[in-house]
């Protein structure tokens, strides 16, 4: 069935969202059409506002509403330890834990040749700039455990190691609270590979 042009465009727009296929996009579009006008305006404004008003921390690349984010602006943080993450979202996840007292560096993605993303497309140059201060003692690589995240961690480690800074990689494996009995073989095996001296 053919939709009138404005609806077709809305469906097309929804399809740009991650994980949304044609069917879901269609459902969302029809849902929006049934909302009161104010609701729709509110949603559209929220999107534009978020895009226009969100700033990124000039130091670490985290989301921020001013030039320096809440982590970098906090005098109590340990500035000798930097945790390198892929996305600003990962900063929030780490912060929820309330255990990490260091600061962050957000790369803005992971190396993926297939998607045209190399080191130059990430905030790696900015990271090297930060390291020049000579204050940094440890870099914790907390990129994702998938193939691209791993390649990114390896790349950063290769360019940073010669500077004499300690580089560590967070352990992956069993999720917290996982019962050994119910973990699948692959997870167990990866946890075993990542084991360390005790």
């Amino acid at each position: 069935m053919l939709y009138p042009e404005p609806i077709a465009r809305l469906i097309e727009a929804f399809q740009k969202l991650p994980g949304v296929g044609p069917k879901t996009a269609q459902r969302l579009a029809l849902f929006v059409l049934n909302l009161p006008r104010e609701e729709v305006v509110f949603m559209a404004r929220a999107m534009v506002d978020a895009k226009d008003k969100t700033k990124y921390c000039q130091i670490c690349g985290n989301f921020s509403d001013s030039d320096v984010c809440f982590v970098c602006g906090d005098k109590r943080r340990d500035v000798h330890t930097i945790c390198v993450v892929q996305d600003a979202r990962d900063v929030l996840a780490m912060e929820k834990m309330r255990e990490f007292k260091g600061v962050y560096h957000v790369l803005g993605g992971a190396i993926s040749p297939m998607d045209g993303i190399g080191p130059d497309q990430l905030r790696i140059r900015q990271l090297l700039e930060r390291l020049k201060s000579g204050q940094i003692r440890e870099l914790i690589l907390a990129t994702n455990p998938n193939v691209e995240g791993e390649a990114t961690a390896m790349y950063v480690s290769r360019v940073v190691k010669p500077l004499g800074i300690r580089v560590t990689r967070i352990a992956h494996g069993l999720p917290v609270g996982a019962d050994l009995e119910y973990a699948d073989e692959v997870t167990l095996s990866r946890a075993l590979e990542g084991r360390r001296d005790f």
Partner: protein
Amino acid sequence: MRIETLFLHNFRNYSRLQLSFDNHLNLFIGANAQGKTNLLEAINFLATGKSHRTRNEEEVVLWGADGCSVAAKVGYLYGEGALKIAYLAAEKKKTYSVNGLTQKKSALSGKLTTVIFTPEDLAIVKGSPSNRRKFLDDEISKVSPVYEDDMNRYQHVLRQRNFLLKTHRKKILDSEELGSWNEQLAPLAAKIVSRRISVIHRLGLLSRLAQRRLTGRTESLDINYLSSFGAEISTDLPELKELFLKKLAEKKEQEARLGQTLIGPHRDDFQIFLNGREARLFASQGQQRSLVLSLKMAELEYIKGETGEFPVLLFDDVFSELDEQRRFALLEAIDGRVQTFITGTEADKMTRTKVPGKMFLVAHGEVK
């Protein structure tokens, strides 16, 4: 293990079907295009989560239906289980369940294992290296989900690395970027090749034995792993990794020119020798069939050795093409130990054997 009952819903030309099987031998007899292979495909679908006949999964759904399901009650040495895979064509989505509970796919792993022999398998002897790699990888994956995962990761890293080589050619060669992909590729390559070499060794012994049994000791079979980077018998991981990285460095100019990765498990192969000559070049049709049969019998024993249970054996058409000596030797070998499903167009050849079993007549998507 054995399938006690099989349930199909909208799978190929079966709208609804329930069959209870014999513990030993089950024959599906019928004219062409009636649905015999479809039954084996359904069993294999439940075991592997995919069709062995097509990549396009919608094809297994009964024409006009929006999805299908295959379920079975499976008996083990100790206990039993109920497995089910349901497939929704519109969403291309599969749901898996074990004993009535929806689970991740990995929960089904090892719950039903099959060894299938179809006429296309002759390509293992005569076909390109990719046929042999697939045979080996499928076999190891059946007993090791970790191997399957390593293999998927390897393929993924390989695709990224090839992309990088292709887009940047020589510029990338000595970069840290390529280096970090190499660093990830090497340990995976080492793990995969190490596992393959040790499996080929076991498979060599087992298939040699099977071949002797099938041919009344007249033919001898040897297999030998062929590595694209010079790995031989060592299965030591650090050693294999070193070797791989060394060869990768030697090949780098050529890789940049061609824009692809030239060594690694994706370029390996294994050779099959029959009485000292390479079977790919010299084996006759009948010899190819019995070689593949020996490999499949070896696979059966290998899986039993690794998991403690014999898999279910599926024979599509090939059985009737074996000569009488081999048919007897085969039935003797599996006698009473392995639940076997055989398709064929004529009953007589098969019923002449004394193995107890059940015969099903297949016609137009119905089974009697």
